[in-house]
């Protein structure tokens, strides 16, 4: 995969965890070959940022979370679709640029990690861009 300009920028532009008493949530990414990776996410960051911080493969996120590239496409496990919420109109538009969009497709830069999402499972597609 191409190294994009975001590889070094995520730390600079990525949302940093806020103060207060943030807890962590566990997120499991399952890649297109079935390998699962479970990582800790900061509450308040996005699922995309969590993926980038933990070097999760198959998430390109070229636009760094601006909802402008559709290269952070994931399939939310059916059990979690309701909790992750609905797509915004902008995200719905942007999904036109993703491949093989399904009813449970999301752009994961648009999913903010909340305490209720502890245990979230998402699958990544083989090809983003």
């Amino acid at each position, binding site marked *: 995969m*191409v190294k994009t300009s975001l590889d070094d920028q995520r730390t600079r532009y990525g949302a940093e965890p806020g103060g207060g008493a943030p807890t962590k949530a566990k997120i499991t990414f399952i890649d297109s070959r079935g390998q699962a990776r479970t990582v800790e996410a900061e509450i308040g960051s996005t699922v995309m940022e969590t993926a980038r911080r933990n070097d999760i493969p198959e998430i*390109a996120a070229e636009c*760094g979370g601006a909802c*402008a590239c559709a290269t952070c496409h994931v399939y939310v496990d059916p059990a979690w679709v309701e909790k992750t919420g609905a797509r915004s109109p902008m995200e719905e538009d942007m999904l*036109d640029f993703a*491949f093989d*969009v399904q009813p449970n497709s999301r752009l994961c830069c648009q999913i903010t990690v909340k305490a209720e999402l502890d245990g979230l499972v998402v699958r990544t597609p083989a090809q983003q861009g």
Partner: protein
Amino acid sequence: MSETIETDVVIVGAGPAGLFAVFELGLLDIRAHLIDILPRAGGQCSELYPEKPIYDIPGLPVVTGLGLTDDLLKQIEPFHPTFHFNEMVETLESKGTAEKPSFIVGTDAGKTFKTKVVIVAAGGGSFQPKKPPIAGIEAFEQKSVFYAVRRVEDFRGKDVVIVGGGDSALDWTLNLQPVAKSLTLVHRRDAFRAAPHSVKAMQDLVAAGKISFKLGQVTDVKGADGELASAMLKGNDGSETQLPCERLMPFFGLTMKLGPVANWGLNLHENLIPVDTEKFETNHPGIFAIGDINTYPGKLKLILCGFHEGALAAQRAHRYVYPERKLLFQYTTSSTNLQKKLGVS
């Protein structure tokens, strides 16, 4: 058809780094041509985040990606740079020596440039069309699968399938319908992210039976020797149908790919071009790399770093372009000479 354009500097990429380099070169009387595969200037700023605010441009507390691009264009106006948009720089050949470099630069549109210096400001790579994950599609590309229309004649009398719901998909649906034998537009939903009048025009054509619209996606293609015969349409309801398809145009937006930069004989480190931090020159004398495409110890992929790199590269470029002239350090605030060049004195 090849026209050869002679110039001092060719800048590959019209992102913020390439744009500001024009300014720094211009102050030193060096003329530049900029080439970009995109239809407009601004690189990532205009393509990926035109409306988003940037907060770390020195002296500008906040500016959007598009705002910065517009300001840069205004700032370099006095130097009359020539832009070549919608063109990919494919080839870069060295003709000169280390002391007196000279290059021939070629684009995919058949243009040739003869230049003394090349500044590679290719950023995260060139923006290229996303290719759908259809097995074996490469074998058909440029023969019967196209990501852009170069010649409408290629579509005359053919069964055409267009996939997508944005402006490109709709524009080509409208433009190719009159020449195509049949045209099918395939999109994942019955909503379009395109100009309302094109959506209306497309719907009118569907209503009149002149084109057909299918909800779903293309999952497979069949054909031989690069010539397509049919495409498999997987409907949103799960149904599978063969569509007659001799020409396929998938429109899924753009992605950044390093592209031809890799073939120019430059040292590469993880898809970036190593440079020194005095002149931002590559391993090849006369070829510089500035902005996101370069790497050196401590590199930050920030717009402001690209600006600094362009300023220093311009100093060294001056020695190649005007070997006989001595470079005098001057401020734009106080030098009447520089102010004349900027058209403000």
